[in-house]
């Protein structure tokens, strides 16, 4: 079911043998929730990704072997019911100054701009993982017709709230950072707020829909 590999002496990488996708993500969310609820002393972080879980811990507080056993127990007992996904509706202004790459995406995919928007907005995406920057969530999968590699030259600064696509994923940039994805729209929704108890809006396993304004 899973391999557990050491990452130095203060983290373990749990590699699932299932393919990445909604089912694996929900399973990982369940395992992470089960592990979290056990409130183990010494485990500091549980980071789900496409088909892995990274568990960071203080080795002076809990031994790697003990963390490994807890992970195995969580894998054995967690059901997908442990985790309740939320559904997020994200209003988006597509194109124009809000989505400066929409025209290029349309040209490269052979779709009209409204065709691109329809394909992007017509599906419910799974939140696969958070990373790259605080609150940045990889959502997927976008329709094959929309899939393009990342830009050859990343933008030095992407406006915060930018809705973007690249390879099989879509995302919203929570802050103004450098970015190599294609910007097709903008949202005012706050993806990351340091003052919220759970600072990131999306959690892995949640579902997201984009709503054209």
């Amino acid at each position: 079911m899973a391999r557990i590999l050491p990452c130095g002496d203060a983290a373990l990488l749990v590699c699932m043998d299932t393919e990445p996708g909604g089912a694996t993500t929900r399973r990982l969310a369940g395992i992470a929730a089960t592990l979290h609820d056990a409130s183990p002393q010494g485990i500091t972080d549980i980071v789900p990704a496409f088909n892995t879980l990274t568990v960071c811990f203080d080795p002076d507080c809990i031994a790697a072997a003990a963390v490994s056993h807890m992970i195995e127990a969580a894998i054995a007992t967690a059901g997908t019911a442990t985790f309740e996904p939320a559904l997020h509706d994200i209003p988006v202004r597509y194109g124009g100054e809000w989505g400066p790459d929409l025209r290029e995406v349309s040209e490269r995919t052979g779709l009209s701009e409204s065709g691109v928007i329809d394909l992007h907005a017509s599906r419910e995406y799974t939140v696969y993982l958070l990373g790259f920057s605080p609150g940045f969530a990889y959502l997927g999968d976008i329709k094959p017709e929309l899939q393009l590699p990342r830009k050859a030259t990343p933008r030095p600064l992407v406006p915060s709230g930018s809705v973007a696509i690249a390879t099989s994923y879509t995302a919203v940039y929570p802050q103004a950072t450098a970015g190599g994805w294609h910007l097709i729209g903008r949202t005012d929704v706050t993806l990351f707020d340091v003052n919220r108890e759970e600072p990131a809006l999306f959690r892995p396993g949640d579902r997201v829909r984009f709503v054209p304004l």
Partner: protein
Amino acid sequence: MSVTPTLEVVRPGIVTTAQDAGRPGYRAFGVPPSGALDIDALRLLNTLLDNDRHEAALECLYGGIVLRVKQGTARCAAACADARIRAVNGTERQVPAWTTFLAREAEMIIVDAPRNTAAAYLGFSGGMDADLIMQSRSTNIPAGFGGCNGRSLKRGDTIALRAAAESGSEWHYRMTPTLDRPDSLRVMKGPQHDWFDDAMLQRLFDGDYAVTPASNRAGIRLEGEPLVATRGHDLLSEGVASGSIQVPGSGQPILLIGDHPTVGGYPKIATVISADLAAAGRLRIGGRVRFTPVDEKEAARARHVRRETFGHIASSRARVA
């Protein structure tokens, strides 16, 4: 009631930020731990000042700093660099590293640039009144939050401390800490060491890597004999631990520290052991480093030695005569 001190930044240095012991626990939200790159220096500095070990101090990366005391009297100490106090009449008194000192209203605190390590630290008795975000006063530079307004210091910035200096002695360590940049770092193989053949793994351990100018608080970018993965250099993004050595297609390794992105899609050939993370934080641009393979037992022994060393130094704390 004595007034809580405030300081004004006269010369900010190169990259100076408020850093405490960091904010572990938020990686699942995409938030890296940040924190002092040389956590050993921070803890010893705070112990010297009778602070909680995790209190925020100013991390002066590569440069020194000049501050003017706007009001109040602060008890301070510098780690990994010497300091001077300049009185209003221009006279200066020297203060060696690892010795507490008082800085009074209108005086200037001058901390030299670190020479044998990447960062010097300036700590304050009672700690700093920097922005407390997600349980930490550390600055996350890439995301722009925490510490002093989420960024490195600029001339004219005001720093507020949390407590006025109490009357009493100055302190130093009879056993002076030596926290220099390391020649080598101990690593455990993996998690993707099996993406590299044995000859390539040996290349990592035989190699001598240069710390390039592209290095910063988010990663140490190294240059040396390229490390080529037989399985290619792309994997599905996964969570990464601090101390991971990731190898992109260029074959040039990147050692993740501090403000690093919390997930990555490059194979990680090895991971610096937790006892050596502070040493990794002392790597200077222009320096060189080697990697030594160790196993989990040796990593545990290294943690033990580190704790013991900390204890010896801490118990050598004594009043300055």
